[in-house]
């Protein structure tokens, strides 16, 4: 079945959507699509069928998000922990993923029409090579689309993502692109797999579980968390509206907390810069304490240099990541 559903909302749904849109709307929603296997058990179908239904529900949900002006959606499709499942189930899920990405490539014109950009986040080297190649093709094909964004987390856990970000920063230090003192919360965020997206405003988990299961732990620290008991394949437009309403009720207090955190971060960065400048002046000064103006100039200069260093490093990182995908694509072409 297709990635794109063209259905329109019925009148009641349209009215409800318009009412919700009068309030603050989340721009980025993340879904933990839990409950496929329980759904399959409930309906006496095969597990694989449950996962298929889950995928269909994803396509439907993307359509609803489009109607609600939710531009970006991130979904937890396959966790690194899921590799622990039986070989049959894992192989089945890999096969399903291959089919879906092939279908995506089939529908590339439709995707272009709707402007859908598909990104896949995770430790992709853990996946079978043919799936990696398909993913690379899908990502490169839809790269330039910018109307809406779908991030699929595959072979992903948040801890691996954070560790990878730290490794990338360490790589930057090794290459002499940045210094260890440049490491900050903002820089770490830029090194995550999700660096092209703003943090999710709303995280929804279905099937009644009330945990995050290693999903976007860093990015959702100040997001609205909504736990719903409906099983994912049974998710409805009203469930989504309910979650959005929860977001709206929490909007002011979460915004306040976010702003507080932002301010605190900025302060920490300023202090860190000041400390570096003070150390620098001490080492390179002529023994006399620098006056306030000299300190201020040095601080400005240091901050500018630091920001330039970081920009260069992030460019190099982007290039490294893009090469990973384009190498996979060209390998396939040559094969």
């Amino acid at each position: 079945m297709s990635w794109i559903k063209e259905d329109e909302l019925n009148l009641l749904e349209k009215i409800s959507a318009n009412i919700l849109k009068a309030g603050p709307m989340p721009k980025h929603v993340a879904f933990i699509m839990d409950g496929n296997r329980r759904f399959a058990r409930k309906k006496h179908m095969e597990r694989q069928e449950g996962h298929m239904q889950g995928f269909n529900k994803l396509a439907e949900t993307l359509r609803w998000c489009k109607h609600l002006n939710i531009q970006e959606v991130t979904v937890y499709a396959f966790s690194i922990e899921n590799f622990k499942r039986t070989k049959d189930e894992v192989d089945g899920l890999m096969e399903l993923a291959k089919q879906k990405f092939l279908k995506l490539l089939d529908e590339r014109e439709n995707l272009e029409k709707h402007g859908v950009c598909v990104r896949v986040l995770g430790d992709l080297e853990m996946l079978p090579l043919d799936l990696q190649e398909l993913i690379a093709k899908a990502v490169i094909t839809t790269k330039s689309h910018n109307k809406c964004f779908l991030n699929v987390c595959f072979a992903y856990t948040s801890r691996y993502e954070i560790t990878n970000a730290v490794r990338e920063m360490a790589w930057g230090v090794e290459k002499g692109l940045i210094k260890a003192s440049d490491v900050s919360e903002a820089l770490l965020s830029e090194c995550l797999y999700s660096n092209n997206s703003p943090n999710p405003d709303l995280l929804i988990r279905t099937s009644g579980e009330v945990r995050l299961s290693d999903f976007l732990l860093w990015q959702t620290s100040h997001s609205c968390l909504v736990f719903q008991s409906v099983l994912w394949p049974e998710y409805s437009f009203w469930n989504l509206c309910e979650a959005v309403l929860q977001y709206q009720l929490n909007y002011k207090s979460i915004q306040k907390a976010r702003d507080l955190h932002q301010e605190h971060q900025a302060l920490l960065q300023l202090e860190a810069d000041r400390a570096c400048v003070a150390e620098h002046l001490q080492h390179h000064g002529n023994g006399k304490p620098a006056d306030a103006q000299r300190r201020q100039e040095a601080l400005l200069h240091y901050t500018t240099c630091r920001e330039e260093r970081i920009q260069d490093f992030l460019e190099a990182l982007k290039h490294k990541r893009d090469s990973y995908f384009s190498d996979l694509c060209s390998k396939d072409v040559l094969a």
Partner: protein
Amino acid sequence: MALLYGLLWRLLLILVHINRALVSWVRVRLRSWKGRLWERAMAALLLPLALAGFPDHQKKLNHNPDANANAVTRNRAASRRSRWLSDGRSLEKLPVHVGLLVAEEEPSYTDIANLVVWCMAVGISYVSVYDNHGIFRKNNSRMLEEVVRQQQDLLGVDGSKYNVEFLSNSCDKHQHYVVSCRPTVKVLSPEDGKQSIVQAAQQLCRAVENKERSSKDISVSMLDVLLRESKNFPDPELVVKFGPVDSTLGFLPWHIRLTEFISIPSHRNVSYEDLLDALQQYGACQQRLGQ
């Protein structure tokens, strides 16, 4: 048209707020009604006993009111302790580490201290307390005093068995491993969250800068060990969140990957039953760990 939808949206929010207020009012009424019903039932049952006998015993009691008051208090505390301990044992599973996330303005130290003491009495080994303004952290000593005071009140003089160990953050490096069964309390703030991860990252990058290690060495377990070094706590299995905000507000992002989140509307005047409810809910959660 947009104006109409705007008005309808505001109406919707008002309806939701009314609904919530109604629900919480009913909860409170139901609890106090149940409570009074219980008191009345007990009074009705015990009244005949009180009227019937023991006039001599009464006189003896009146001679030594203080001593007996103490005895009564001690007995009450002892019976409470044993009840709480048995409650803990009767749960399907008990978390080893519970986080108390206060997402409300102006926290009440007494209520938090109560919660900490109840957690310990029920058999939970590690309790952490968090608010996203860092208020608890700033008033660390006041929190300590309050917990000790509530310990006395609720657990009686024998509460010394539950000697609480407070982990302060200033001398973390010299903190010995807490392997004892003594309950440990930790006061957390947003700095213990993303900022600790950043500090660990800086440490690793400095090691790389000094050519002490390579970037390829950096693994999940290495980062995990670094983040645990200054906390010495197992990951929280359960976080009880107080307040209307549906967010973790920066609470220990790294450590909450498998944590269950259970909400209680407010920490003000929270009761032991509220906590027990949450623990029972936790007991019913099933973790499949990816499988």
